[in-house]
């Protein structure tokens, strides 16, 4: 069987369940691909083929006995290296935690293990999910599979790169100001930040407690919904975990968008922060496509983008510095420059400003949810620009904050980044589809209709074309 590396989770699951594909054969194919290409992409911080083959052999035995566990059984996946996997270091891509071996699995890792997934390793991140792309850390930054000279987004950089590169059909990332959706957007894959509290944060190194979300990156919408179904669920040991996530995220995917009301938040990318023309055109074409599929499209207004971004950064840097203060006192030299500067931004935020930001957060979230009352989903930009060169720190700094993702860490809403085409330079373009709290199923339904109508997901990066 050729091109095993481009199988989706859903396709592979069908083959594995029907015993037309061996988990070991599948895993070996992806191991070979990673060994051949990851030296140029650095998606993996810690590649664990020995664990993967053990998992694959176990899956093969169980499926052979008729004990199919579900859609991830026998399928490779990876974890961003701020997520604990028992027995392996969780480094956060930092010298600070280079020897930090996890004693037990994160809640989400345990769920994916129980689902029979094949663990392939830990994936590159920005240092502590905030400092990157950096060249002064113990491990190199991940690169964009569409052009390795370009930034692959972050902070779940390896998760985006590995998925786009055909190293893995699914990877797990985290998102505090957009860090699942940024690499998804830059790498041309699908990334979900679910509603706050749907996926447990236990066993995941915090960046900012009140803004952190865990989410899947996949090449298709269906796979993303399947993964979220496996990841979601109440965890009494995570104080932010909701008692009952609805689940059933993949159940209504094929119902189309006819009659659904789609609100477009244009002012984010047309007025508040003017998007690159190619990005704006890609989003507008996607909106037109949804209208052509029968959605009722109307423009809606939210608070100015800058209000959400200021609120997000005030909360994020304050909470991050609170967690890092001890290390900043004792080991400041062990951080990379980007993480150190970005985290230190929280050192002197006044307590009153932090409290007021939390008050604004509630107010802005309530207002945003009210603005969705008469629509089903909203659509807006993810990044304002296509991926810039990774070796151009000024361009990275300029484009990094030009985004509309942090809005939905403030509101807690589900937000999905999906590809909407490619720039003239062949780099991915993307938009976000956003829902009311706990309406992930509807977000996926809209995204799936768009994906089926455009088939951007059938385009893959060519490693023969990337520079050596």
């Amino acid at each position, binding site marked *: 069987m050729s091109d095993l590396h481009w199988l989706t989770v859903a396709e592979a699951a069908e083959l594995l369940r029907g015993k037309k594909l061996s988990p070991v054969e599948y895993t070996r194919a992806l191991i070979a691909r990673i060994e051949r290409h990851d030296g140029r992409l650095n998606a993996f911080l810690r590649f664990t083929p020995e664990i993967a083959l053990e998992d694959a052999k176990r899956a093969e035995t169980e499926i052979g006995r008729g004990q199919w566990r579900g859609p991830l059984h026998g399928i490779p996946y990876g974890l961003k290296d701020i997520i604990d996997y028992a027995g392996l270091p969780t480094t956060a891509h930092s010298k600070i935690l280079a020897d930090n071996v996890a004693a037990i699995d994160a809640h989400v890792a345990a769920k994916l293990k129980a689902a029979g997934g094949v663990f392939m390793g830990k994936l590159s991140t920005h240092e502590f999910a905030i400092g990157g792309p950096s060249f002064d850390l113990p491990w190199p930054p991940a690169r964009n599979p569409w052009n390795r000279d370009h930034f692959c987004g972050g902070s779940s950089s390896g998760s985006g790169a590995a998925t786009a590169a055909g190293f893995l059909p699914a990877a797990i990332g985290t998102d505090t100001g957009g860090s699942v959706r940024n690499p998804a957007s830059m790498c041309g894959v699908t990334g979900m930040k679910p509603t706050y509290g749907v996926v447990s944060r236990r066993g995941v190194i915090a960046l900012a*407690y*009140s803004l952190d979300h865990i989410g899947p990156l996949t090449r298709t919408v269906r796979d993303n919904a399947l993964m979220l179904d496996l990841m979601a669920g109440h965890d009494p040991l995570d*104080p*932010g975990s909701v008692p009952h996530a609805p689940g059933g995220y993949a159940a209504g995917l094929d119902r189309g968008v006819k009659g659904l009301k789609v609100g477009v938040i244009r002012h984010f990318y047309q007025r508040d922060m003017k998007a690159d023309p190619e990005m704006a055109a890609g989003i507008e074409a996607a909106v037109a496509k949804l209208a052509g599929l029968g959605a009722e499209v109307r423009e809606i207004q939210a*608070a100015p983008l*800058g*209000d959400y*971004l*200021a*609120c997000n*950064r*005030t909360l994020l*840097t304050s909470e991050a510095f609170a967690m890092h*203060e001890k290390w*900043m*006192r*004792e*080991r*400041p*030299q062990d951080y990379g*420059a980007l993480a*150190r*500067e*970005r985290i*230190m*931004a*929280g*050192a*002197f*935020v*006044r307590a009153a*400003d932090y*409290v*007021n*930001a*939390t*008050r*604004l*957060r*509630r*107010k802005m*979230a309530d207002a945003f949810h009210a603005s969705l009352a008469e629509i089903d989903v909203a659509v807006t930009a993810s990044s304002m620009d296509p991926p810039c060169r990774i070796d151009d720190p000024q361009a990275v700094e300029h484009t990094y904050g030009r985004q509309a993702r942090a809005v939905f860490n403030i509101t807690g809403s589900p937000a999905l980044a999906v590809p909407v085409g490619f720039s003239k330079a062949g780099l991915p373009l993307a938009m976000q589809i956003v829902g009311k709290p706990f309406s992930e199923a509807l977000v996926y339904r809209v995204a799936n209709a768009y994906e089926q109508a455009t088939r951007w997901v059938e385009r893959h990066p060519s490693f023969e074309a990337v520079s050596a």
Partner: protein
Amino acid sequence: MAEDNLTLEEVRKMAAGIGLNHLTDEHLQQLLRATRAARARRTHLPLSSLDPADEPAHVFSLAAGEDR
């Protein structure tokens, strides 16, 4: 202290005041930039929209029936 005029020496004292005693000059330059940026960001918070009754969005809550 004028926020735009925050100096390296001032930030050095502020850092010492919270126990950040191992920062090099390069680190202090970073802290200066980061603090200036954070202070500039404060002006973008729409604080005038807040009413005294607007409550913080805290995560913490007690389970129903739990004794206080």
